[in-house]
């Protein structure tokens, strides 16, 4: 649980790629914990009625999975001083046991020796399509 040292980080370092499963039950649980009860995250009828292909994951659920990759790499979650994403495409979650799989790959884009920070850019895909764009985090290293 110790913060990664600045000296151990180099531009181009790749964070271990990880896959996160999301099922309908994940969305129910996330709705309860976050307070985001938008019906498009649990009602297939409503989702389709408003023109979506099916129930979609909370954008913030997806962002949180990306956050896990960054905080685990950083060693201490409090090292993450800035974190932003743009939601490019909804993550459609079918009502089955397989759900959807969110794949996250991160890379150190730049480092700032004065601030002892690193910027990590993240590529986030589902079924080979990017669901987030401009996903990046700034991590203050030890």
């Amino acid at each position, binding site marked *: *649980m*110790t913060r990664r040292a600045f000296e151990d980080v180099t531009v181009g370092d790749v964070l271990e790629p990880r896959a*996160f499963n999301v099922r309908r039950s*994940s969305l129910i*649980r*996330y709705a*309860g*914990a*976050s*307070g*985001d*009860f*938008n*019906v*498009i995250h649990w009602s297939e009828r*409503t989702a389709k*009625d*408003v*023109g979506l292909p099916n129930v*979609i994951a*909370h*954008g*913030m*659920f997806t*962002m*949180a*999975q990306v*956050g*896990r990759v*960054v*905080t*685990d790499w950083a060693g*201490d*979650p*409090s090292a*993450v*001083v*800035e*974190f*932003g*994403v*743009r*939601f490019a495409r*909804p993550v459609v979650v079918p009502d089955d046991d397989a759900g959807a799989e969110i794949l996250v790959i991160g890379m150190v884009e730049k480092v700032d020796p004065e601030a002892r920070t690193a910027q990590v850019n993240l590529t986030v895909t589902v079924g080979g399509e990017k669901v987030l764009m*401009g996903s990046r*985090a700034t991590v203050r290293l030890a």
Partner: protein
Amino acid sequence: MPVNRDFIGREYVAPTVYEVSREKIRDFAVAIGDLNPLYLEPDAARSAGHPDVLAPPTFLTVLGFRFHDHGPIGDPEFGVDFSMVVHGEQRFVAHRPVYAGDRLASKQVVENVRSMAGNEMVTTRTYVTLEGGEPVADVFWSLVVRGPDQR
């Protein structure tokens, strides 16, 4: 229905302080599938130099929805049909970690409303501080209100 531009610049102060609890952090961490001991175990957090368990980077989302009905999105005059809302962008700038026991005050400002490809894009900024005013985080939300032709 277009979103009401008169709301640009309006400020909404959360009516009550939000007290962060260990249990809420635990619920949130479990919901995102992250069992990091720094979120769940006070002893582990203290050994790492923290005063108590801390919250994951996206935890402050909770605050946004806690005060939903007291903010612009919950105001019928603003003209946002929540079932037509999808998330556009999200950014957190942290000034200090969020810990269990923190008493958080927040203020949400409607920064902009603009049309984009048949949709309406609403951007807000939430200033989160400790009760005494010490900055905790700035949270930037962009919501896309999908146009009626997308239904």
